[in-house]
């Protein structure tokens, strides 16, 4: 039994209550003594309960349903029963995720808790009966020494969520059982059924216990009840819409609790608070909260108007809020103070608190702020600060006297990962500027309030998911540059808390890690691809502007090159592709290599079609290879993706050795920013990931040539256990095939060279071969190896020149006649190392 309903059986004793005002949380059963102003309503509920055996108390959220039952109805019922020497057993549950089980367990638990032993098998059987369940259970309960059994179903509306998410059938059975047990349906027994159910007369000598059900529900769910057979009729007969408190009752609720504790609230203050309550949407919790603050701040328990005005004047809230909603201002002030305690001035704690509160709120379809309870385990995931700090933050907000989050410390001291955490009251969401402020922060261009930010980001995410779906079918639907920049940056922050996205998945597959969800991958893919294209287009456009008329010349050269290469599809070239060729031209002047882009989507399509991914990454006939403006045959067709490269250690002046700014100036590691463009120094091997903790490099996935521009995906990562840095970058690695190295000359030099090629990502099998003497060439056999041969030739020229000083000749690709056997390396690199510098 939840503590809210506990402790009602006892008679009057000294109150063990903290103070006369519970603040935001509802009243507990033991607080009946300080519960004033709702006497008429409690009486009405009791009258109905006596006559109908079931009462559905409904009203808006936060109107005090739970308090009324816990501190009004049940204590009164218990005392009335005790006055006559009758026993009352009260059980309570929320439908939650196992309504039927909870119902049975609660009833059985209470019957078992009677003064006499009960046959539990019979109890279970009685509950399961469709007809006659109520009298049978009443007899069993009576036999167990119980005169009245009262079952509270708190937050009955949870049943409708259960029906939607889990099982409508079980929900239906639950409703049917409940109605049958309560005897609340007015359906007359059909002629073939056993006769009507007698209402147990409540007296010590009666043979049956009285069984009653008290349900609480939010009024907006009344309509949902009609979907369940006989439930609607039962509700019609038993509903009680909780009215607003009259002003005179409100004044009593303000003044009288203090008197129980020997204090006073002066009339002027009570009138002022009642006036201010009239300006609030759901005033009761706010009134209780303000009084609790005043009571705690008071030395002598004499609360007066001046104390209230001082508290307001001292509040750090805006003049407008203080004028318009003084009670809200007091709440907001308190919330700010608790926030300051919870965050201790640390920005990561502040961010974590923001994400916790964002996870706990939502806007409904009409834009109203509503609560969104979460399991504690999820809050740990979205907070991004680890279990201990998350726990500290959550505990800070659920302390007694704070009660901004449930379960309140006063009701449940410890929480575990499965505990459902909730915001205690929607008033907090609506009135705390930290949550609800809609003004746009000029720095971040985002709303200041967490709730607003959450709502906006949820919309962005969903839009991205939908767009990513569209992008799958239409590869030209990538995002434009501005959108990519903004959303790309935003998505980087989402990646630090992937769990955030879970509630916004349109069709989640329930993966443990949100990043494994197809929708996440689709969004990631869309942004990655959009970033790649944006980068290309921007750089090309910039070049175009910079180069002026020269660009036209270069474009012409590029076009001529294309024609010369005999590539088809001129008419298919879009403007973007023309720009890409321009970029290619620029690259060629720097590298003697031509670069062209591949389209990820086409690659994906091909993969789905079952072709060889290794080839897909290299050859893209749709985009076409671009012919060289330099040495014949030095052509590369490469594909841009992300990979890790070693960008070197810092040199004496603190700058990195293997990376410079795009304009050639060197830079320190701290200046490498996400999204920035940098130029590579030296041929670098591209690896799948950063080195492991042991310093071992990850697998090579290709090569990135000297002087190529790359885009940093993340800031540099310090190399484990060594000086220097790794960088994850968007780049165009070349995928390297197996090579047989036939060499002449110095064996050792040849082995070193083979090692160098292996380091670059080639698989090299080297052998001494006399026929290599005097030859420097790459031999290929099949036409499809031509591209790879060209690339190997280009790299080998550079490699042999740089490492072994073999500058005299350029390695040239040659079509050979003797093809290797299938499975054998398709390329042969034939080099005479005789002239190599040792």
């Amino acid at each position, binding site marked *: 039994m939840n503590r809210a309903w506990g402790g009602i059986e006892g*008679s*009057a004793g000294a*109150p063990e209550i903290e103070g006369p005002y519970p603040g935001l949380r509802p009243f507990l059963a033991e607080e009946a*003594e300080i519960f*004033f*102003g*709702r*006497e*008429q309503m409690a*009486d009405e509920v*009791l*009258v109905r309960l*006596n*006559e109908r055996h079931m009462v559905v108390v409904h009203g808006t959220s936060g109107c005090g349903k739970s308090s009324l039952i816990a501190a009004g109805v049940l204590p*009164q019922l218990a*005392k*009335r029963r*005790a*006055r*006559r020497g009758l026993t009352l057993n009260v059980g309570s549950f929320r439908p939650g995720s196992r309504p039927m089980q909870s119902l049975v367990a609660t009833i059985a638990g209470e019957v078992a808790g009677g003064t006499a032993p009960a046959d539990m098998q019979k109890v279970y059987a009685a509950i399961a009966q469709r007809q006659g369940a109520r009298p049978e259970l009443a007899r069993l309960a009576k036999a167990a020494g119980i005169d009245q059994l009262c079952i509270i179903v708190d937050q009955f509306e949870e049943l409708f969520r259960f029906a939607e998410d889990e099982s409508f059938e079980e929900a239906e059975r639950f409703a049917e059982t409940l109605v049958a047990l309560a005897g609340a349906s007015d359906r007359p027994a059909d002629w073939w059924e056993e006769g009507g159910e007698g209402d147990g007369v*409540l007296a010590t000598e009666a043979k049956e216990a009285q069984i009653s059900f008290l349900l609480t529900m939010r009024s907006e769910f009344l309509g949902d009840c009609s979907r369940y057979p006989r439930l609607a009729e039962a509700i019609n007969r038993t509903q009680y819409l909780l009215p607003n408190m009259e002003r*005179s*009752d409100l004044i*009593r609720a303000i*003044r009288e609790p203090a*008197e*129980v504790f020997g204090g*006073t609230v002066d*009339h002027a203050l*009570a009138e002022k608070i009642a006036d201010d309550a009239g300006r609030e949407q759901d005033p009761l919790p706010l009134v209780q909260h303000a009084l609790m603050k005043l009571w705690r701040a008071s030395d002598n328990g004499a609360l007066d108007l001046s104390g209230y005005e001082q508290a307001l004047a001292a509040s750090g809230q805006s003049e407008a809020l203080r*004028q*318009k909603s003084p009670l809200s201002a007091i709440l907001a002030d308190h919330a700010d103070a608790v926030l300051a305690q919870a965050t201790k001035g640390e920005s990561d704690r502040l961010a974590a608190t923001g994400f916790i509160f964002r996870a706990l709120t939502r806007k409904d379809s009409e834009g109203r702020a509503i609560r969104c309870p979460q399991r504690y385990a999820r809050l740990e995931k979205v907070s991004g600060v680890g279990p201990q700090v998350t726990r500290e933050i959550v505990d800070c907000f659920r302390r007694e006297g704070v009660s901004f989050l449930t379960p309140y410390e006063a009701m449940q001291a410890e929480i575990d990962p499965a505990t459902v955490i909730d915001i205690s009251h929607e008033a907090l969401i609506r009135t705390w500027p930290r949550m609800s402020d809609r003004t746009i922060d000029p720095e971040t261009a985002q709303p200041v309030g967490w709730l607003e930010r959450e709502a906006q980001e949820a919309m962005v995410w969903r839009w991205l998911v939908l767009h990513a779906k569209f992008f799958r079918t239409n590869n030209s639907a990538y995002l434009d540059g501005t959108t990519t920049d903004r959303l790309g940056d935003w998505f980087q922050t989402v990646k630090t808390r992937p769990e955030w996205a879970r509630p916004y998945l349109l069709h989640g597959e329930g993966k443990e890690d949100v990043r494994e969800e197809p929708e996440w991958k689709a969004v990631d893919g869309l942004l990655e691809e959009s970033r790649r294209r944006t980068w290309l287009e921007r750089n090309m456009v910039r070049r175009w502007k910079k180069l002026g008329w020269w660009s036209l010349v270069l474009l012409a050269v590029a076009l001529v090159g294309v024609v010369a290469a005999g590539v088809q599809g001129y008419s298919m070239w879009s403007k973007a592709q023309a720009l890409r060729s321009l970029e290619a031209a620029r690259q060629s002047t720097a590298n003697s290599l031509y670069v062209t882009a591949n389209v990820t989507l086409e690659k994906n399509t091909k993969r789905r079609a079952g072709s060889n991914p290794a080839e897909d990454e290299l050859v893209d006939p749709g985009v076409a290879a671009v012919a060289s403006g330099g040495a014949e045959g030095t052509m590369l067709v490469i594909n841009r993706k992300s990979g890790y490269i070693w960008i070197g250690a810092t040199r004496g002046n603190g700058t990195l050795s293997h990376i410079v700014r795009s304009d050639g100036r060197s830079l320190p590691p701290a200046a490498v920013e996400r999204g920035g463009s940098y130029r590579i120094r030296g041929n670098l091997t591209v690896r799948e990931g950063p080195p492991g903790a042991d310093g071992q490099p990850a697998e090579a996935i290709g090569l990135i040539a000297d002087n190529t521009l790359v885009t940093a995906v993340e800031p540099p990562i310090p190399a484990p256990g060594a000086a220097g840095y790794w960088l994850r970058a968007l780049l165009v690695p070349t995928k390297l095939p197996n090579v047989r190295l036939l060499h002449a000359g110095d064996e050792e030099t040849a082995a070193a060279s083979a090692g160098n090629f292996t380091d670059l990502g080639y698989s090299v099998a080297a052998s001494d071969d006399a026929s290599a003497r005097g030859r420097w060439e790459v031999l290929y056999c099949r036409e499809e190896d031509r591209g790879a041969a060209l690339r190997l030739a280009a790299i080998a020229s550079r490699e042999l020149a740089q490492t072994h000083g073999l500058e005299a000749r350029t390695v040239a690709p040659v079509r050979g006649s003797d093809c290797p056997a299938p499975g054998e390396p398709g390329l042969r690199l034939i080099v005479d190392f005789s002239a190599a510098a040792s």
Partner: protein
Amino acid sequence: MNEPRTEPAPQCFLGRHGYHFDLFLSYAHADVDGTGESPLKTWSQQFYRSLLAALRSFQLEPLPRVFLDEAPRQENALNRAGHLAPELIETVGKSALLQIVMSPHYLKSEWCRRELEAFVNTLPDKRGSAKDRLIIAKAIDTEGQPWPEALCDAEGNKTVGWQYHDPDKYFPHGWMTEWGRHIPPQMGAALFDMAHFIKRRLEQIDAELTEKQKKSELVSWLEQGQAERIYLYGRSDDEAEWDAVSQDLDRLGIVVYPGEPEPLDVDDDSAKRAQYARLASRCDAMVMVGADGLKLDFDLDVVGRERRNLIASKYKKYLPCAVLDRSGSLARPARVSNARRFGIDWIDPNACDWPNYIKVWLQSSADSVRQRYGVETPAP
């Protein structure tokens, strides 16, 4: 129409609460040429007659009374305040509500400014809550002209009021016409709605002041140790005890309710319980007959606390309550302290001059009743 000022003892709806007029009609004469006549004055006077007719149609008793100043005012005269000022200001102070006929002329009029100022200044001293005391009838368009602060809300927005001209028209309906008893149809709805609002506000003030007066009377009644009726609670199985106390009170001339002790099953008989509560609400105090300790413990809670709270909520009646411990053996410290927490006193007849002590007890309970009702302590 001159009768308001000629009557020696003014009778009006709120007259019993010390008001001389229910409504003071404040309007600018706009008598620029000094002839004593102007279209706005004519319109305002006709408006006054129509409003008065509408108000009187609600059949309030006594009939509401509205003040209208018909004396000629020369806005441009040198001595603008004139000798009438003190008398007018006094009348404003004795009026419950201020009805303003809004026009550009009103905003410029020194007379009207003084009337408004006087009304606002006397508001804190007026009896009853100060809210909704200014009624604005928008006669001539004042779009774009600032209103006095007193006529705007906290955020500086003009009070909504009732509009008597079309949104796109400058002059009100019935302008420059003699409408006599026939209100121009376009302004009928606004006039009726406004009159209804005034009527409701008058009734609210009346109810508020009547409640206050009744409470004061009750408090002073208790202060004198007087009680007309006392609710005597006892269980039917303690009939003898109950009868004895009932006779004691009867001898003092105090009527005892109900006529017999309560049966126990009243807890489950809602109709009976409601009747007992209603009876109790008609009494001046409650006395609980203490016979058995255990029973008393439950009764203190269920009747002494809960039922009295229900009566306080439902009938707005606070009943002073005491346990009469005839045997003198029930007054265990825990029980007495419980009772005190519920606001229940303890009378031990053996230790006092019972039943005459009841007067002393009633006098002593007067303070807590006063405190609960917020009735001010009379000046010594």
